[in-house]
Structure formats: C-alpha cells, structure tokens
C-alpha cells in the first residue's frame, strides 16, 4: 500500500535539505501541482512562488477558481494572462505533437522570464509517472509529449524538482486527502488544456465552442452522479472534431461540426474503460449541446474506446 504520511515526511525533509533559495512552481490548479505546491511550501515557505498561466485554453471560469485556490493555500503567487501569445503561436498548427511542444515551450519561456526577474533557481513541477512514461525516452516510444516533459529545453537554466515523479494519480489523491486539500477529487485536466480537445487548428472561435461543450458535459454528468443515476467517471469532457455533417434545423438544411463525448473509468490513467453513461444523461447532454451551440454543432457522438487501444484525450 501507499504510505502517505511517510511520503510527506520524507519528501518535506528532503526538500528542506536540497532546496537552497527561491523556487517557482508551475501551478495549473490541478491535484498534482496543488499537492506539489503544498509539499514544497511546507519545506521552504514563502520562498516558493506559484505561477499560474492562463493559456486561453482553460475551462469555463477555471483560471479565476485557480486564483482563489492559490489564495486559500496561502501561496505567494503570480497570475499571468498569456492567452494572446498562445493563440498567436498556435495559428495554423494542426499536428498534435507540434501543438503540445509549442505549448510546453511557451510555458518554460514564461517561467524563465519570471525566474530571471525574481532571481529564482528552481523550477518545481507536479510531474507524475504517466507524464514521463508517455513522453518517451531512450527505451520507450513517444505516445504523446506531455507539456511538462516534452516541452523542456535541453539547456534549461532552472534546476528541476519533481517530487511526485514516481506516483500515479490515485496516489497523489491519497496525499491530497492526507493534506486535507479541497482539490483532492478534482478530475484530471491536461496541461495543454482545450487546445488538444480541438482536433485541427485551435482557434479562439473553436476554443469557445469546446469550452461550452466541456462545461455542459461536466455539468450534466456531475448532476447525474449527485442524484445517483451514475457513478462519477474518472474523467469526462467534450472533443471538437474537424468533421462536418448535415442536419435539419426548422425545416432548413444545417451543416455543422461534431462534438464527441468522452468519459472513462480509471485508477491511474495507464488503462481505462469507457464509462457507461445512462441514455437519459446522454440525451440531456446531446440536446443541451445542440440547442445551445445551435448553428455550430448539429451532431453529438459518444466515444466507446478503452485504453488501450485508445488514449483518454484524442491528441
């Protein structure tokens, strides 16, 4: 079994000994970065600076919630709105690996800028095992480049600290519960954000579509699991496909985009089964998406692929 108390004690002691000076944590607001921040904060206090970057690809109201979380955790923090830079860099980019690398590189560029100004020596990341496993290495094939691994430059000036490197999500959640953190059960959200839930170019317009669709999927599934009509999946979201299909809207021909609903059960993200969502819930999601996104979306499909052969996210 995983021993949370022991892990916390050993790691805080180790961090106290090894981190001499200021450190910056890449703070997305997810359970990995939040737990990591809490551990390092325990070790070095306000020498830790949390930096949250709003990439423009966060979910509805997410960056505002992350700001509140950083306040709740009493972190010394910076909030950077870099959405314009992200949209510019991703203009015309379709290849999913290119997208991931551009996003990862820009993260580091922005962190290095802060570090230089504030004379920070260390970069703390909440990297967990699947991130480096799937990113590939000398022995392993690259399944997808995670932003916090594949985006790192070869000659980085910052010293890297990744206390959760050997853990999986279920173990990080155990730590979060042991540390009484509100984020302990938050569903995973990828670092590149909604950019990899838009298959094809991640334009601002398409981002707004997938942001609303993700919100609807989350809202309906959370309601359904609250009233016990289904088990809350491990992860659940919408993907915007680069496919158009014909529909009929008020006796007129419609020609719009397709949204795929994805929901999976997992423990550690390394194997997953697609979730069984009751038809009544699928029905609510489908109707709400097609009605509220009107002209833009006229078809909704449900992804029934396990991992393997699929992965959780489509890119």
């Amino acid at each position, binding site marked *: *079994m995983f021993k949370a108390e022991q892990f916390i004690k050993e790691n805080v002691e180790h961090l106290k000994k090894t981190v001499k000076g200021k450190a910056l944590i890449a703070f997305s607001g997810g359970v990995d970065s939040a737990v990591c921040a809490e551990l390092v904060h325990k070790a070095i206090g306000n020498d830790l600076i949390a930096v949250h970057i709003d990439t423009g690809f966060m979910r509805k109201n997410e960056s505002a919630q992350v700001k509140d979380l950083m306040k709740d955790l009493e972190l010394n923090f910076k909030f950077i709105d870099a959405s314009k830079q992200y949209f510019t860099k991703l203009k015309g980019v379709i290849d999913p690996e290119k997208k991931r690398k551009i996003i990862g590189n820009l993260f580091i560029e922005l962190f290095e800028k802060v570090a230089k100004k504030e004379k920070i020596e260390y970069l703390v990341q909440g990297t967990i095992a699947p991130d480096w496993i799937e990113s590939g290495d000398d022995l392993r094939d690259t399944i997808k480049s995670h932003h916090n691994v594949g985006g790192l430059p070869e000659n980085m000036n910052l010293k890297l600290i990744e206390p959760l490197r050997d853990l999986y999500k279920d173990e990080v959640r155990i730590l979060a519960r042991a540390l009484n953190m509100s984020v302990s059960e938050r569903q995973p959200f990828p670092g590149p954000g909604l950019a990899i839930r838009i298959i094809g170019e991640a334009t601002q317009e398409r981002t707004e579509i997938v942001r609303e669709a993700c919100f609807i999927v989350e809202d309906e599934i959370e309601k359904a699991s609250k009233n016990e009509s289904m088990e809350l999946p491990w992860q659940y979201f919408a993907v915007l496909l680069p496919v158009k299909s014909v529909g009929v809207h008020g006796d007129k021909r419609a020609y719009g985009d397709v949204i795929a609903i994805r929901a999976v059960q997992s423990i550690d993200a390394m*194997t997953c089964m697609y979730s069984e969502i009751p038809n009544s819930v699928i029905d609510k999601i489908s109707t709400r998406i097609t009605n509220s996104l009107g002209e833009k979306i006229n078809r909704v499909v449900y992804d029934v692929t396990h991992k*393997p052969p699929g992965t959780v996210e489509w890119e």
Partner: protein
Amino acid sequence: MVKIIVIDNGGQWTHREWRVLKYLDVETKIIPNTTSFSEIEDADGAVLSGGAPRIGIETTLGNCSSYLEKASFPILGICAGHQYMARFFGGDAAPSKIPEFGKVELKIIKTGCPLLSNVSDRSIVWESHNDEITVLPDSFECYAESKDCKIQVIQHKDKPFFGLQFHPEVEHTEFGETIFKNFVSICETAKK
C-alpha cells in the same frame, strides 16, 4: 524479503510492474535492459517487461538473452519479454493475425502452473500486442489461451521461467495482483 529486478524493455507499464511489486513489500528497482547480468546476479527474481520492440520482426531485446542464459532465479516475461523468452529457447514469434488491445477473456486450459494459482478458469485480462508466440519451444508448456491468441501463459518444464502475453501489472486485469503474489512466492521458495 526478496529482491525482484524489473528489466525495462521500454514498456508503457514497466513502472506499473515496479509499483505492484513495491505494494507487495518486495525490494525492487527498474533497470534498463542494457544492464549486464553481473549487476543483477544477486537478485531473487526478475521481470522482463514488455516494450515497443517487435519480437515478431526483430531478433534481439537488449541483454535479455544473457539473463535467460545465466539466471538461476525465477524470471517472468511479460508481452515482449514472454515472446522473446520463447524465441530464445527455440520457439518463434510473428506478427499476430488478430492483434489484441484492451479487454480480453483468458481461459485456463491446463492445471498445475503455480503462477495461475487462485486465478479463475475464465477471467478478464488486458492486452496490448502486435506480435505473439507462434511456435512453443519443446521445453515449455502452455497453460492458458484467449479466443484470438492461443499461447497466453507459458512455463519452462525444468527452469523457473514463466511468460505471459497479457499484462498482470495493470489495474484492469482481474487477477493481476494474485499473479504477482504467486510470482513473489515462487521467488521466495526458490531463495530457500
């Protein structure tokens, strides 16, 4: 406490093998398959992980041949490790006619394999392979199959060597932990 080394052949789930062993309170570490045998000589057992190399096409798998040649401790080959083990002892592997990915039903066809102790005759396992064993070496017996892949669990007739085509280390394999517990007992017995 036994010490079981995980030989990394570049699998997506190599680190999961390490985690399952660690949870069973085994002393364990992951080493790359380029490590020489002399560095793992003192182990009580080894797991040859799966990996991206196509055993149906390529003929080598790091230093795995030297481990299979020299080790007297138990070895568990998984996926690519299992296929390579068969190849090393004179069998063969080739691209699968029907590759298996994800959820598959495993059927035990022969009793007596200690690795399958307390595993139901039919159970759910998770697979991820493009190749499979096509010729079982004379020195091995096969204990389980699936609908599309006949050689799923093998054991050497004289040596404590085992092979699994599926992945006992992943959460969704029903008796995965049981199989690892069995392998740990096999290593404990061999140590005595």
